[in-house]
């Protein structure tokens, strides 16, 4: 683990050195991400101020709901979006062969290879809105709530990373997975920007049991905002980190199967 962090740190330093060659591009990328997601928050604000609330959720509630989703997405994206999520291109470009000739795990090398600098913009904008919402709504976090909050962020990161790994792994079989990712990850996950309760029952079930995106933010937000109505809501909320571990394990299993298929051990 120490070895991992010290190597990652060296890679990050090296990455920023190479990024410095294109300073303008770097800052523009950061800014455009910040700006893009700032607009999303502003849209919520406009929506909520004209509607009063969405399904009983005011702007602070929605900021926490969306903030959990965006923060976990950005953290996971910083680690693996540029590499694992785009595995198809790495396979066709011969990059995977290079990883396989080095004495380290493939996934580990992919994390090292590209630090997702552009996600920093999203992290900053989320932290601003998330902190404002917490101060507004909850005041000071009790130690228990704070611990739960952290656990949910970890759980969310694991689910988002799991999704990215799973979608990237599809490339082992199909050579490309961007379209599948767009369809089942981005588009469906976007529904979780709004409280799940406003959707028809079947969508709620799909987002819980088929694509577990509601565990990233909706169920944890229910507990954090004290909005749980049934024991069932409460249990699902507590399960969120567990789901994260399970989902990541499944996706790692699929990734390793894909790797075996690539090298030909599967046939």
């Amino acid at each position, binding site marked *: 683990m120490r070895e991992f962090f*010290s*190597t990652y740190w*060296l*890679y990050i330093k*090296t990455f920023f*050195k*190479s990024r410095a*060659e*294109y300073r303008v591009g770097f800052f523009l990328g950061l800014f455009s991400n910040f700006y893009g997601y700032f607009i999303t928050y502003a849209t919520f604000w406009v929506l909520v101020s004209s509607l009063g609330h969405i399904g009983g959720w005011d702007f602070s509630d929605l900021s926490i709901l969306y903030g959990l989703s965006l923060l976990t997405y950005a953290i996971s994206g910083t680690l693996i979006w540029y590499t694992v999520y785009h595995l198809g291109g790495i396979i066709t*470009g*011969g*990059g995977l*062969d*290079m990883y*396989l*000739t*080095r*004495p*380290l*795990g493939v996934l580990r*090398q992919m994390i090292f290879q590209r630090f997702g600098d552009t996600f920093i913009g999203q992290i900053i904008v989320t932290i601003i809105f998330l902190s404002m919402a917490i101060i507004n709504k909850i005041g000071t976090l009790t130690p228990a709530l704070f611990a739960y909050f952290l656990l949910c962020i970890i759980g969310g990161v694991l689910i988002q990373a799991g999704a990215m790994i799973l979608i990237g792994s599809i490339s082992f079989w199909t050579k490309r997975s961007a379209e599948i990712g767009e369809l089942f990850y981005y588009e469906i996950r976007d529904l979780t920007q709004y409280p799940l309760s406003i959707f028809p029952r079947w969508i709620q079930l799909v987002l819980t049991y088929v694509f577990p995106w509601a565990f990233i933010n909706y169920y944890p937000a229910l507990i954090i905002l004290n909005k749980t109505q049934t024991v069932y809501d409460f249990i699902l909320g507590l399960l969120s980190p567990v789901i994260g571990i399970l989902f990541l394990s499944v996706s790692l299993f699929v990734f390793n199967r894909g790797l*075996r298929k690539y*090298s*030909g*051990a599967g*046939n």
Partner: protein
Amino acid sequence: MNIIEIEKLSRNFKVAKRDGNFLRYMFRRKHTTVEAVKDISFTIQPGELVGFIGPNGAGKSTTIKMMAGILVPSSGNIRVLEKVPYQNRKSNAANIGVLFGQRSQLWWDLPVSDTFKLLKKIYKIPDNIYKENTNTYGDILGIGDFVDQPVRQLSLGQRMRADLCASLLHNPKILFLDEPTIGLDVVVKKQIREMIRGINAQKGVTVILTTHDMKDIDEICQRIIMIDKGQIIIDKPTGDVKNRFKGNSTITMVFDKIPDELNVPQAESVELKDDGKAVISFNSAIISSAVIISDIISKHKIVDITIKEPEIDDIIRNLYNQ
């Protein structure tokens, strides 16, 4: 001890058949199995310089990838440094250096030295060895002049030298070079070849390379393994292959006065042309050019003589055609 042992090794790939119209290709694809490598066997000794040749798609890269632990064989046995590479991928990786000529492992926007530092970390190279290797290889490969320039500003030849150095930093026992001279000009090719020989001589590194340039083989390799359609056609010392095809040696003579008849014992063919030229083909392993020439000179008056030994390129072309 053999450093590499390969026995009845095969590797199949499933490929989609690209026939019929695009709709059928899109929705109802048929797959066929292609045998990229079929039942090949060979062993390699430590310190050998072996060249793999063969037409595109012959199975050279597939064989290298199996030795490097990237691909798992469909059947057969493979041992590299007494271990099965795909079962011990990481420990195998620590013992081999790999260079894909078509793809760089250097960090594009940064000086070569930055990539070296990352490799030092990945391969856990001790400080003293890292220092020693960057110095010796830096000298052999002449990297010192451009070590601080971003890779994107390097010429292809400089980049290839830096990539070669990168693949050697961790003291690999075996070096796999997949088309190390591709796209380089004649001068740089020559440099790279000298460097590969130098590395082999100084450090005893076993070198296995693939190439389409027969000069690479001629100047670097002691042994040729020729693969075609996944099978080994020839596995011989480079000198033997050249000897076997010395039948392609020719002497062209221009006579002062065209002789009515020219009798050259042990020549393979004699061709008399109207402009006073005679082309004599012979096998230089059987009879030397000196014997033929002195025999003819004693009987006829000669204006000019040209002797041509077969180029390895011609030899290989002959082999491919057979």
